[in-house]
């Protein structure tokens, strides 16, 4: 044994779990659960006295020039020191599910991997730290990036032009429909053509957009197999119809197989074809919307081209336009001068046929750089492969789940063997008589470590579950997901309602009372509130 003078540690400690101790789920004193720490609001941890910045003292002036409009009363803004700020927001971040931490199969949202090279290049000073209104000769490199991305988007879609300024998908829809209205005005048919045809399966932004531009919406029934019947369209078409708004692949995850016939019918009737490009990820590199007869289509850069979803934006929604609509694209747009080969931004509509302006400045440059980095990384071969893997993954999930969940449009069309595109759609028949809803099922998925799929959309099937795995998921992850979904479905059918009805049990929060939130809206923190 060691002599007492020796400095070596000779006192042992428990170093294996005490296996005789029975596990009890006792509440902690703090309410915290190890890594999950309750974090109060900023206004409960900070104060109006605190700050986390050091700013040089303002220069001395003899008098201010605020014209007597000084803000004398306290604003009430709360501050935190830098380390407190760091901890506050890191702790909050830990309450979020994210693609980086797990599978996020949210249908129609295309939650794919966000490469970090995109973040790195988007922060280069010559691309991030430039002002939209500094002289154009000092920002040619940035304008060329916009031009380069525009070129890829036009070639991938087979379209004549692209409006790069729309700020998100819905803003792109608005831009596309405005271009259509502008074309109708130029033809002198705008007052006559007041209707827009929209299938009932469409995303809610489509009808909202059409009304925004002043159109009446005529809803089109989808046929039993979830697609649009060209005969129904032909019946609805007349010289009062301005356009059809169709999503392809559609919100049921299916390719509109008669799309070309529909496009022809629409064009014969003198109307235009707006395509909602939310699901372009499924066909990019394999088909060009321009060849399908599309006149305008927005592309969600935050879906298809992987700019981060950021908790709900920022997005970007460039709109590709056909030859018929190209000249009506809004300002600004990139122009390359034939004489000196110099690029510039055309910022004023005077002297052009541009319909107007969608936003101040030039659109989402920060998203353009990221999307172009994604596109260049993939190249045309990688883009095609990504679409193929996205479609492969969705069909794999569908094939492995269709005996336990209820795939949509199979019962209505016995022997229905058509592939899904990049999304697999199920409905809640398999939960019939279990007392468990699609919502309960989704909340149980949270406990299993998966973000739920899109629920209750599209509206055309009951209790919809729209699963979009994207190309980013490995086969191993898909197999785990599939096994979990099978376990949950069997558990539901075996009457194990406990697992579902009050789920989630293991998330940072239990189910929240949305009724209370809507009935008595509390939309900001107030000092001394109850």
């Amino acid at each position, binding site marked *: 044994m060691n002599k007492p003078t020796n400095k070596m540690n000779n006192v042992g400690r428990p170093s294996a779990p005490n296996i005789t101790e029975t596990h009890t789920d006792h509440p902690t004193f703090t309410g915290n659960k190890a890594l999950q720490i309750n974090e109060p609001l900023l206004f409960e941890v900070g104060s109006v006295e605190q700050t986390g910045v050091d700013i040089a003292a303002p220069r001395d002036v003899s008098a201010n020039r605020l014209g007597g409009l000084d803000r004398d009363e306290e604003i009430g803004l709360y501050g935190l020191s830098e380390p407190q700020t760091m901890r506050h927001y890191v702790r909050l971040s830990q309450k979020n599910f994210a693609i980086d931490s797990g599978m996020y199969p949210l249908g129609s949202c295309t939650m794919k991997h966000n490469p970090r090279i995109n973040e790195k290049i988007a922060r280069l000073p010559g691309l991030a730290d430039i002002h939209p209104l500094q002289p154009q000769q000092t920002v040619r490199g940035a304008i060329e990036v916009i031009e380069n991305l525009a070129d890829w988007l036009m070639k991938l879609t087979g379209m004549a032009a692209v409006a790069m300024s729309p700020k998100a998908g819905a803003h792109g829809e608005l831009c596309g429909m405005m271009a259509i209205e502008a074309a109708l005005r130029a033809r002198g048919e705008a007052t006559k053509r007041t209707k827009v045809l929209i299938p009932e399966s469409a995303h809610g932004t489509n009808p909202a957009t059409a009304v925004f531009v002043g159109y009446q919406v005529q809803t089109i029934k989808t046929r039993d197999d979830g697609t649009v019947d060209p005969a129904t369209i032909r019946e609805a078409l007349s010289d009062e119809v301005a356009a059809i708004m169709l999503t392809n692949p559609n919100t049921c995850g299916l390719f509109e197989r008669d799309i070309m016939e529909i496009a022809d019918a629409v064009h014969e009737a003198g109307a235009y074809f707006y395509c909602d490009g939310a699901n372009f990820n499924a066909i990019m590199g394999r088909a060009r919307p321009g060849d399908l007869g599309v006149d305008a289509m927005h592309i969600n850069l935050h879906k298809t081209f992987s700019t981060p979803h950021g908790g709900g934006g920022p997005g970007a929604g460039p709109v590709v336009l056909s030859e018929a609509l190209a000249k009506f694209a809004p300002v600004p747009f990139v122009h390359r001068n034939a004489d000196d080969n110099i690029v510039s931004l055309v910022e004023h509509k005077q002297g052009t046929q541009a319909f107007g302006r969608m936003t101040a400045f030039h659109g989402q440059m920060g998203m353009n750089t990221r999307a172009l980095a994604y596109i260049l990384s993939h190249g045309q071969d990688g883009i095609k492969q990504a679409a193929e893997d996205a479609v492969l993954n969705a069909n794999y999930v569908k094939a492995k789940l269709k005996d336990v969940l209820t795939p949509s449009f199979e019962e209505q069309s016995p022997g229905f063997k058509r592939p899904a595109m990049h999304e697999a759609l199920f409905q809640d028949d398999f939960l019939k008589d279990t007392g468990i809803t699609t919502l309960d099922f989704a909340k149980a998925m949270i406990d299993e470590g998966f973000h739920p799929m899109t629920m*209750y959309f599209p509206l055309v099937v009951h209790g919809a579950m729209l699963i979009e795995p994207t190309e980013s998921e490995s086969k191993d992850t898909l197999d785990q997901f599939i096994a979990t979904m099978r376990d949950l479905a069997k558990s539901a059918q075996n009457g194990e309602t406990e697992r579902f009805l009050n789920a989630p049990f293991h998330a940072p929060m239990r189910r929240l009372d*949305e*009724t209370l939130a*809507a*009935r008595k809206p509390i939309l900001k923190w107030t000092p001394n509130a109850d």
Partner: protein
Amino acid sequence: MSKFYTEDHEYAFIDGDIATIGVSHHAQDQLGDVVFVELPEKGTTFEKGDEIAVVESVKAASEVYTAVAGEVIEVNSLLEDAPETVNAGAETVGWFIKIKMSNTADTEGLLDETAYQTHIAD
């Protein structure tokens, strides 16, 4: 008082030339927890079939149309702060508005209570 319903689940309970308008018990059940009711102002006049209100739950919204024409003489002020009143008693305390009818014949073609019960059982 005689009770009339539309196929779209509005009711008009008639007492003389005064109609009490609201949504049926069945309708509130379908909507779920009602969180907001948008009501017209007193003094507004409506034609039969006009939109008079919007009733909202957390994930759904429905326009409400009047089955009879006339002028709004009273609005249920309870609903402003306590929209849950509609769930508590859609056909009693949760009524929307009272209308002084301009044409008492408007009730022709509406469903009576028995016919409505049959309609929702289908």
